[in-house]
């Protein structure tokens, strides 16, 4: 992704992050590391956003004699899918576009906080004071 493309997408990611924080966007946790948000129009699925956090190992030779040393980096994959064609319209992978990492980390953290808050609210509902 070129810097121009990233600059064009950034306002949308920022808006998604802001609306997530204000609970206008409610994300669904489909597995421990992936969240989705679906936009439906008149009951039909129109679009889906997903964000996934992964850990990537990198191997580098260090020392004398050289020995392989692994480092783990958090990586984020953001996708926007258009339905019904299920075609991927936006795909940002911070392994390929490391400059997008802070942006997607912020979004993922906001979603995680929201998910945690929802879990606590659920517990509050079933165990009222």
């Amino acid at each position: 992704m070129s810097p121009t493309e990233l600059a064009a997408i950034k306002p949308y990611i920022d808006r998604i992050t802001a609306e997530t924080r204000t609970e206008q966007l409610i994300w669904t946790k489909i597995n421990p590391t992936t969240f989705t948000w679906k936009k439906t129009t008149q009951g039909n699925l129109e679009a889906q956003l997903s964000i996934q956090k992964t850990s990537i190992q990198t191997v580098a030779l260090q020392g004398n004699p050289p020995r392989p040393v692994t480092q783990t980096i958090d990586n984020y994959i953001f996708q926007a899918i258009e339905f019904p064609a299920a075609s991927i319209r936006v795909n940002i992978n911070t392994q390929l576009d490391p400059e997008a990492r802070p942006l997607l980390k912020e979004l993922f953290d906001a979603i995680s906080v929201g998910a945690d808050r929802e879990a606590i609210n659920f517990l509050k509902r079933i165990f009222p004071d």
Partner: protein
Amino acid sequence: MTPDQPEPLQQIEQALRTPYWHHADFWINAAIGAAGAIIGAVGLYYAIKAFRAARAAQRAAMDAKTAADQAGRFMTMQTVAIELMGISQRLNNLDQKIRFREARFLLDEVTGKIHRFTAPFLNNPELAPSITRIHETLISTKNALSGVIPSPGEEEVEGQTYNAIQGETATLNLYVNDLLGLLEVKSHQQLAI
């Protein structure tokens, strides 16, 4: 001998004056002794010969055992190298659309095979570090896959499983190939012996 001696004494004196080698008893005993010495010497000769033959046989047996062990190790290395090549190809061709269930089967299969094939070399000081790295990466791949266990009733997003494990499988493939290279070198060393 004096004529006034009694006859038995005369006979004793006579016997004492006669040289001992004039007695048949001496020669009989000497013959028996000589025969015993010859038999003993022959026995000792054959005992030494038998001991040397046994020692040579023992050495030959040990050489044969060493050769058999080396051949066995060589064959094991060759077999393991072929199997590791197969694993490497499977990891290399990880499908981008792989689903969680398929990935779990793949990882279970690869983990089982790698543990089985590397077990004979765990105590090998040259191979052990490489094997340890493979085992550690298998664990981190398993952890990465655990990160995409589908929540009940939720659909998988295409590519999520691939995204979760592709980094680990690439590292795993790299370490498998490291081990493959080490096994090839050791196989060539075995051939050169």
